């Protein structure tokens, strides 16, 4: 009996202390917190958290593992479960704003003095009606990933005396493919000389096909896939440049230089590259570590070069990125706390000791994980920030920059932001056109794109033209 009484008293005390011992600190949930199995990343975040909470004891950082996806964000937002800050893609903020899922942070950014330091192109992407709704983490440009060993094996590139690959001839001209015709030529060599391989992987599903195709269309001479004319948005998916790009895919398929698989998405490019099923792939500059971390692809066996041109003149690199956005239910104080935490993560334009230490910790962690450390496309345009960030980057770069130089030297001239309206939905329709070309040898590129164009105009652009 006495035992029972003691147990009851203990439970009661526990309940009372749980109810009464409230923590009145401001809770800031961080949606990009890494999963527990990523021990090195978690360690890094814990260190940033510790530093932050020491300087700002009024805040309580709450880990929240949330990977954004369009289907989970609706449920999360409705249930008021969105973290205070989370990552998304550059194509998403407009939809999130329209549905009331994220909030305006203009005042907070201006108070911190970060607003004017932001990369102007990124700021525009994250803005609506003169208000800004996010902070860019970093950007990416689309380019061409090359398996150097395979290209060397078929005689496209050469080797230096020290065993490194030579990507330019003696006059400095690239030996790697710089046009879509070159890609076709190199693919022929790959297919002829290496069993069960293709030259390049062409994505066609999960909106990833359309995403990469839009860049291909620009490089075949299409200025824009959406045109603003007489106060209205018009779909331009069947522009002659886009048709030529789709015809190029069709020719590649007819000549069996690419797979007929019509369900390839972004996970597949690094699977195919990692398992040496293809020699080339289009991908973002922020994803170069994926074959390394997932398939142990050797750091010295790949290069990343600018997107090829289709018409000999148009050279664009689709420019996107990852922004941090803030839940519509977050208070001003929570937003301010989350923004300050970004500084402790080294993701702000600040260049004081705290930021520099945080950036260094990021590089050291990447180094320990064996990830390739390469230049990044910066979110902030402030000269002081750029100087410090570039200096740090140079210190930690662990790849042969000869293999990446051309891309990073030209990205600022080549970069072109994604199309402005219903971008993901447009990509889904372009996916269908690519799938049709891959699966049906008799499909007509012009008519496939005309169908996609009509659907995009009717189902999407007509909504904003009302």
């Amino acid at each position: 009996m006495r035992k029972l009484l003691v147990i009851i008293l203990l439970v009661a005390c526990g309940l009372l202390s749980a109810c009464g011992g409230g923590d009145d600190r401001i809770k800031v949930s961080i949606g990009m917190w890494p999963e527990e199995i990523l021990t090195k990343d978690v360690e890094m975040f814990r260190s940033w958290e510790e530093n932050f909470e020491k300087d700002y004891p009024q805040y309580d950082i709450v880990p929240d593992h949330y990977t954004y996806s369009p289907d989970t964000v609706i449920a999360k937002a409705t249930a008021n479960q969105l973290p205070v800050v989370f990552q998304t893609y550059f194509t998403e903020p407009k939809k999130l704003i329209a549905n009331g899922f994220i909030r305006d942070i203009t005042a907070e950014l201006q108070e911190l003095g970060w607003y004017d330091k932001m990369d102007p192109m990124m700021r525009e992407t994250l803005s609506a009606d003169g208000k800004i709704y996010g902070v860019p983490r970093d950007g990416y440009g689309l380019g061409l990933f090359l398996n150097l060993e395979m290209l060397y094996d078929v005689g496209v590139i050469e080797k230096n005396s020290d065993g490194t690959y030579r990507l330019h001839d003696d006059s400095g001209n690239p030996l790697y493919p710089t046009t879509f015709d070159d890609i076709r030529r190199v693919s022929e060599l790959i297919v002829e000389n290496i069993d069960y391989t293709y030259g390049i992987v062409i994505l066609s599903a999960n909106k990833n096909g359309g995403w990469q195709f839009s860049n291909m269309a620009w490089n075949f001479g299409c200025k824009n896939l959406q045109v603003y004319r007489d106060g209205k948005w018009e779909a331009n998916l069947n522009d002659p440049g886009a048709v030529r790009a789709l015809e190029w895919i069709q020719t590649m398929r007819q000549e069996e230089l690419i797979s007929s698989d019509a369900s390839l998405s972004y996970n597949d490019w690094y699977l195919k590259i990692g398992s040496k099923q293809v020699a080339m792939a289009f991908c973002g500059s922020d994803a170069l570590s994926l074959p390394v971390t997932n398939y142990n692809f050797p750091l010295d066996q790949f290069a990343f070069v600018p997107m090829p041109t289709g018409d000999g003149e148009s050279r664009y690199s689709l420019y996107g990125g990852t922004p941090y956005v803030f839940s519509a239910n977050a208070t001003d104080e929570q937003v301010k706390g989350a923004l300050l935490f970004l500084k402790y993560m080294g993701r702000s334009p600040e260049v004081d000791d705290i930021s520099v230490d945080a950036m260094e910790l990021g590089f050291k962690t990447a180094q320990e994980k064996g990830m390739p450390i390469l230049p990044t496309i910066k979110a902030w345009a402030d000269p002081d920030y750029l100087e410090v960030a570039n200096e740090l980057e140079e210190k930690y770069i662990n790849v042969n920059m000869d293999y990446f130089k051309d891309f990073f030297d030209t990205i600022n001239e080549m970069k072109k932001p994604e199309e402005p309206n219903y971008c993901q939905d447009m990509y889904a329709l372009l996916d269908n056109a690519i799938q049709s070309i891959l699966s049906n040898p008799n499909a007509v590129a012009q008519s496939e794109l005309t169908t996609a164009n009509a659907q995009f105009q009717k189902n999407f652009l007509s909504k904003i033209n009302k």
Partner: protein
Amino acid sequence: MENSLPSKIIDRTSSSYKIKKFLRKNLGGWLIMLPGLALFTFFVWKPLFQNIILSFSHTMGMKAVGFAGFENYKSVFQDVFFIDALVNTFKYLFWSIIIGFFIPIILGILLSEVVHFRGFFRLGIYFPSIVSGMAVAIMWSYLFDPNPGAVLNQLLARLGFKYSGFLSNPKLTIPLIILTMTWRGAGATALIYLSSLQNISNSQYEAARIDGANWFNRLRFVTFPHLMPTIKLLFILQVISVFQVFYEPMVMTGGGPNGASVSLLLLSYNYYQQMELSKSAAVAVILSLIIIVLTVIYLRLSNPNKREAKNV
């Protein structure tokens, strides 16, 4: 012995008596059912009604922000993808009857005929049902890889056939998805048929044998009449489940190539992803109506006796 008389005469017609009697009789039952009812209300009925409301509303996120009348339905009917999805859903139904309906019946009959290792065969046939549906879909999508170096294409090449595009061939996509679903589900259905078959008395087979019935006639005049109620029930369940086909095309093809395998439920999910909740809800309502109508038609057609009895 003294008879004890009731001190008060009970009025059995009074409402208080009836309520007390009702409570005494049913209260326990209702109390037991209450948690289940609460869960049903919360997880089934509320979302169901909320879905119907959303389909007639303008939405912001998941909130209804104004009455839209039939606007969402009109917009769904005008969407070319809806027509594709509707046609595809009937294609799924067609192929599921061709491939998926008869295989479990055949398996059930074969299992009932097996004398040795019956347990082994039962387990073997049921085994794919244990595997998670998502894992099955992923596994088969790897097997159906259209590349020349992939498993099935290598097998085809060794047998002297041409490489196949498998899921990338729009004509093969739906039959192959149905094949995958059948591979996973046939075993469980076959066991239901097997249990029905085991209820058939041996004496009926013996009587048929004495009457000179051969194997086929025994199947026709003894086995099938007994199996018929199970066949009818499982047919309806199959129609309902095939109309709800979703994750197999989502994982294996994403609805492609070019919408060749998109189903109504996948279309509803696509609208949801585009944050067009009201259109997503409208597709779900349309799908429910189609299933209800088909079920009623089927029940009417398959129960002629009931209709005749009513007419009499």
